[in-house]
């Protein structure tokens, strides 16, 4: 029996996140025809993924739900443009990444306006005291300090388990660039974690 290192990107490639391309195209075609069951299937399949991605990408808790809904509205609006050249998951990740960046920009503008107009920004939600939540908060904080390009590659590869060739497609860069960004993102994250934990 052929054996190789487990958990490598190549290995993951055999198990697409969003199902086979045929299934993807079928579900998209049914959505285009107005099949509400297909739309529900698509939502059920990808809503947790999008939510998790937005969380890891640094969209704050109070904006996460709206951002997730916006992504799905955008997905629905753009279904006519999905040609099946990439996996459905890749395409949705790309939309989600765009929206996450947009949400971050909007938040910065909102914060700036709040400062200019001397308005109190809404208080952040009360922190969850559990150890797991604390770990996640620290991770989110560290990841948010990475540049958006490195952050995207790191989140997709390390948290979402997306193969690097798909990561490159989502990030719109060559594969080698994606590897390079990942390398530097890992190094920066490790260094930040060491400083934080010390």
């Amino acid at each position: 029996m052929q054996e190789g290192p487990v958990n490598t990107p190549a290995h993951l490639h055999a198990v697409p996140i969003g199902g086979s391309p045929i299934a993807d195209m079928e579900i998209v075609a049914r959505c285009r025809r107005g099949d509400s069951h297909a739309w529900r299937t698509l939502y059920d399949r990808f809503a947790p993924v999008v939510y998790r991605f937005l969380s890891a990408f640094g969209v704050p808790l109070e904006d996460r739900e709206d951002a997730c809904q916006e992504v799905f509205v955008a997905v629905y609006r753009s279904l006519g443009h999905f040609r099946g050249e990439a996996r459905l998951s890749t395409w949705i990740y790309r939309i989600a990444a765009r929206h996450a960046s947009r949400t971050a920009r909007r938040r910065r503008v909102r914060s700036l306006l709040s400062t200019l107009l001397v308005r109190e920004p809404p208080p952040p939600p009360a922190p969850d005291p559990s150890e797991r939540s604390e770990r996640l908060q620290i991770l989110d904080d560290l990841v948010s300090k990475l540049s958006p390009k490195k952050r995207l590659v790191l989140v997709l590869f390390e948290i979402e388990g997306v193969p690097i060739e798909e990561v490159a497609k989502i990030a719109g860069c060559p594969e080698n660039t994606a590897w390079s960004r990942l390398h530097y993102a890992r190094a920066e994250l490790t260094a930040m974690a060491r400083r934080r934990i010390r």
Partner: protein
Amino acid sequence: LNERSWPGTSGSDPAEVFLRRALDDAALRAPDDVTLRRGWTAVAEPVKPSRARSWSWFAGGVATTAALALVCGLWLWPRAVATFALTSPVTTPRAPAQVAPGARRLTLEGGVEAQLGPSGVMRIEDGAPRVEKGEVRFSVPHRPPGHPFVVRADDYSVVVVGTRFGVVVNDQVVGVDVDEGIVEVRQTAAQRRLARLSPGQVWHSADASVETSGAPAPEPPAPALPVSPAVSAPASAPEPGHVHVRIHDHRQAARPAARALALATPGGGSATAGRAAITSTPAGLSTASDESANAARSALSAGDAPRALQIYRALALKTGPAAENAAYQAGKVQNERLGQPANAVATWRRYRAEYPDGILRVEADVSIIETLARAGDADDALGEANDFLRRHPDSERRAEIARLAGDLYRARGDCRHAVGAYQIVLGASRPRDVVEIASFRRAACLVRLGDAGGSEAARAYLRTYPTGRFRTEAAALVGDGARSVDGRARPQ
């Protein structure tokens, strides 16, 4: 770099240990089912896909300018109005509908449509709309449990889960009429229920009267918990605690003030009639479903599991998300609190029968498999596990279930099937510890089978997890590939 072995597994660097745990946590982060349902409510009927874009640049420019002007204006306006206007474009996945002449249509958070009459004035206060003057008609899609829609008018609150209704304020007199569904009118300060309105009924604050234009609609009895445990009610069964009133065009018979309420019914409205279960208000007002869910949680906190089970069963007889939740939770109570695994499995199977595509379907499947496995019913557990693996090719729980199936096969000495199950686990990236265990146990099974790939599988384990928890046993497998190490290498 190519392998997913970062961060390291040595355990000597606390930063790496922390990152590894945190990344695993992040990979398993998932929204709760209420969030998912709320999201589905918002996107269930999205706008139509965009058409030709010949005017898109021009229209985009105009829209951007208008939006900027609007945003700037709203930032200078009182906060309540700003909230209203800013939230509306975010969650507006609604189909366009006919608007009465002179009326303005707005979409609020959660897909709620508000149609303001020519003299209607509405503000948003603390996240809820307040009708200041004139008439506003609302079309409210089904709401998730615990998130009813509340409209305030003068000293009154109108509480609703999913329906179509209108509110009018004229000279300090508030009127409420209902097209579909059931709403409650409450006195905001005292939180006292003043009226419960069915379709065709009109309520006025002047004399606190309820007027019915169609068939008489008696006040529905308070929802009561059935004493006997019950399985799920058929879909056609009347909902306990609700009176089904024939929808009647009350506009002809209503008195003048009521007639003023009756604008054209919004075309294409998607509100669901009749079966909406009223839950609680954010302000602390509570109604049937939410009270029941809270009561069940309180009973569990107090250690009264039989009572919680009874409440969940009663709630499961209703319809909607709260009922679905309750149908699943009843099984959890039986399994975890009452020590009745067989009954729990039966309850979850009933849940599956009633909600074959329910949002908790995967949870129910996993609960059944784990409970059967713990109870020692390996045959049934394996049947369910294999069905799960066939049915959910993309589930995040796939690796866990495949590993469980592998362990069950291995425990009965069926290494060949165990290898197949562990192989499925290796196709997943998370959870890492599950993948690591499956990687080692697969190697052990191959060695036990005398498969030539056994040693190589053990070496692959050592390459991927050089400091893994089974490194000693894996090294033994490599050194003595033909010897079974199952007995001493079984780590847990």
